[in-house]
């Protein structure tokens, strides 16, 4: 299992490049083997094996000029170079342009150290935001507008698309398409500070019907608390977490950190750092600085009762 390996592809854009990757890899390995053999056989012809005295014992000889061997070598090398050059230009034209009529448009902003994902729609009330988990319909070409939030990051889903940087002050375009359903790992690949290592995300490609279902669910606000415990939890979340996070349908409305409206529907928390679950959530809330040192969430040090209440509420955010 190699979630970030790029020698297999699951979508058009990655697929269009893969044969070129294999070609250049094959050329490279062949060149190393050929030169290695030539070198090895050349060295094996050694007249002697020793130090300075042995070296001096072999007389100097002008020998033949040998320049034609350089010519022959270059002529042979030119062929794979030319093929690669032409193929590169063709592949580049194939994959570089963003699709003219994308089935879905995403606005993705990279932050230290998480991914903000906004789903664009014609009607303003159909847009929503989530974090670190991107759902897309299988088969559709998805346009990805990449915005720089703070420092430079890079958006990469190896099985679907190569890297595009997110740079403050400019909007870069990327696109992807998944030919089959599945979970595809993504990762920030431009060094962005202390927690560059923990800046993963996932792209989940699902059949269009299922995707629409997911989308409708994400549009819904958070459910109302059903128990006194959850109610206390919600006010705590509004009061404390709401300084940075948003839970739609509540007073927590800040946009500085991941949207928590459907927190429990996502597979991981803290950008792939931990699997989502009551236990890991409790650990995270209490000591995010121990689990992901340097990230922007402070340790909460909640009294036990408050933590239980907060968890009781958060677990309803499915």
């Amino acid at each position, binding site marked *: *299992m190699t*979630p970030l390996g790029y020698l297999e592809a699951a979508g058009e854009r990655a697929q269009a490049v893969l044969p070129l990757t294999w070609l250049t890899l094959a050329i490279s390995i062949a060149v190393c083997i050929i030169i290695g053999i030539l*070198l090895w056989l050349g060295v094996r012809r050694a007249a002697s094996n020793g130090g300075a005295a042995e070296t001096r014992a072999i*007389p100097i*000889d002008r020998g033949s000029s040998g320049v034609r061997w350089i010519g022959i070598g270059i002529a042979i090398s030119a062929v794979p*170079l030319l093929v690669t050059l032409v193929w590169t230009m063709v592949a580049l034209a194939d994959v570089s342009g963003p699709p003219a009529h994308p089935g879905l448009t995403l606005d993705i902003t990279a932050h230290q150290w998480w991914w903000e994902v906004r789903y664009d729609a014609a009607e303003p009330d159909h847009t929503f935001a989530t974090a670190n988990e991107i759902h897309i319909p299988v088969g559709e070409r998805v346009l990805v507008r990449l915005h720089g939030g703070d420092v430079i990051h890079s958006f990469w889903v190896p099985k679907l698309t190569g890297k595009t940087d997110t*740079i403050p002050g400019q909007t870069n375009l990327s696109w992807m398409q998944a030919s089959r359903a599945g979970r595809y790992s993504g990762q920030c690949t431009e060094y962005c500070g202390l927690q*560059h290592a923990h800046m993963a995300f996932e792209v989940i490609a699902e059949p269009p019907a299922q995707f629409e279902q997911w989308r409708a669910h994400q549009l819904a606000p958070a459910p109302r608390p059903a128990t006194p415990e959850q109610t206390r939890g919600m006010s705590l979340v509004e009061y404390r977490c709401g300084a940075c996070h948003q839970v739609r349908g509540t007073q927590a409305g800040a946009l500085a950190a991941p949207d928590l409206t459907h927190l429990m529907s996502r597979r991981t928390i803290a950008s792939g750092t931990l699997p989502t679950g009551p236990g890991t959530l409790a650990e995270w809330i209490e000591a995010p600085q121990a689990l992901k040192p340097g990230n922007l969430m402070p340790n909460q040090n909640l009294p036990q009762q408050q933590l239980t209440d907060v968890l009781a509420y958060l677990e309803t955010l499915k």
Partner: protein
Amino acid sequence: MREMRGVDFRTPTIGADSVEHRARLLDLWETAPGLKGLLGTTDHKVIGIRYIVTAFVFLACGGIEALIMRLQLAGPNHTLLTPQQYDQLFSTHGMTMIFLYASPILSGFSNYLWPLLLGSRDMAFPRLNAFSYWIYLASGIFLYVGFLSGNGPNDGWFNYVPYASRDYNPGLNEDFYSLGMVFLGISVTAGAANFIVTAFRTRAPGMSIDRIPILVWGTLTASAANLVVIPAVSLAFFLLWMDRQFGTHFYDSANNGQPLLWQHLFWIFGHPWVYAIVLPAMGMVSDGLPVFCRRPLVGYSLVALSTVATMILGFGVWVHHMFATGLPGLGLSFFSAASIVIVVPSAVAVFAWLATLWLGRPVITTAFLFFASMILLFVIGGVSGFMTASVPVDWQLTDTYFVVAHLHYVLIGINVFPVVGATYFWFPKMTGKFLDEKLGRWNFWTMFLGFNLAFLPMHITGLLGMPRRVYTYADGMGWDTLNMIISVGSFVFAVGVLLLFINVFKSLRSGAAAPANPWDAPTLEWSVPSPPPPYNFSVIPTVVSRHPLWDGRLSESGIVSAVDRGMLLDQGKETIATSPMDASPEMIMEMPEDTPAPFVLTVGISILFVGLLLKVWPLAIAGAVVSALSILVWLWPRRELREREAAHG
């Protein structure tokens, strides 16, 4: 006045070498003992060895940093290092290896060797030479004071903004790095100017431009490039420091600055710099390998031209570091094509070396093994570079361990291996002692196997998607076993480097004595005793071919280069200046006396930079004043050099 005219129009006396003549030269050229000589010497050989020793010390520092990182990365989720520590380690490792080892080590060898290769008595500007070393040392110390006080660079050697800006990086780390790089740039610039003038003006009579060793071509080309690109990087770092300390907005997108401006300025410098730190090393192989193949290099002119061609093309490939930054496809395709085409001149060198090997009669020595193995490592580093030249492929490869593997094959394969080979080759010349051959074989095989064990698997972790610059990684990604192998390999490699150091210390104490020309090599440095006297050549040689010491055996016309009869030049510290292309003698060059001025100037500049770092302006001004005064003393016109005339009475 009368006397000066006499000197002006003097024609150098031609004569034969003699004991009295040598005694007179020694008297003129010998560095004074004690502190005076220590701080004041302008002998290029002393300066060269200082460069080499300092660079090897930094190599050891960078190596230790790498080993600590490899402990952290040996398995998933290790917690030996905090993210802060890891980030400073990988940034300092890159800075050390690229700026404080790879370039200075080559400057060291070139400094030591150039006048000896060219048949001259010193570099064109001996004091500038001393100055460029002192500045290198001072800026290296400056940067390491930062690192050791917990203020090392923490944004990689490439130092992208905005992460390097004050908003995200409030400590002194980036101030140390920015100012340190401007500081070091002074050394590289001074050194480059010196090499260029030395190459064009101080060659022995008859050593026309098509007869200079390839090492000289390499360093000359690299120096020309440095003069062009160092201003870009010094400017980039200076603007960063201004942004950080004075609130300018060069890189600040919120105020219409441009983060990508940094990347352009940095890589316009960065990529030519990569060639600058490999071309001289390739020159070492081009000059050293033929000696052990017992014949001249195949395709000298092609190799010399390809050296220059590589550099010219090297100016047009910087954007291949920026393929993922969202630049337009048309622009990318140009840089992609240039990056593929640059393979051609590199391939010329590879085929020339292979042809030399096949058409000669190789002798296997430790130096030969390092030079020959470099060919393979060069090819491996070259083909992986060729893969990253293809834009769509690079969009997958870039910023993964594949690139880490690539750049280490380039920097270790094409820099460290030739440098170690060069150490085995020229150590007898520098010290009069051989390095131990038997220990040398252990040295070679440990380094070669350790290196490949450490860096070959990195290609695979890269293809399996492992990103660069992560302080840890999760398990289940398919990288665990490979990373363990890499870490083991890196320690084996480190043992290999340690064996080199052991061999050096052992051989300095008890190595076999080396004659003037132990390898029966063809170039002029081998015509003088080992180690060479302070004045290098007792008489200035006259050269008629590329391989003056092989002329007797290879010359078809019967005309041979003269090394024991020539210009005596013993009326003062003198050498001969020749014309740039044909090297016909033009004038006698008076060489300056030793002086502590470059050292004092360096102290002044160091105070200035510490003042700027701490923003203690009186200190900065004091440093500037000391610097100005020492420049004044340094450049004060002297009558004996005819820089001024006696006052007309």
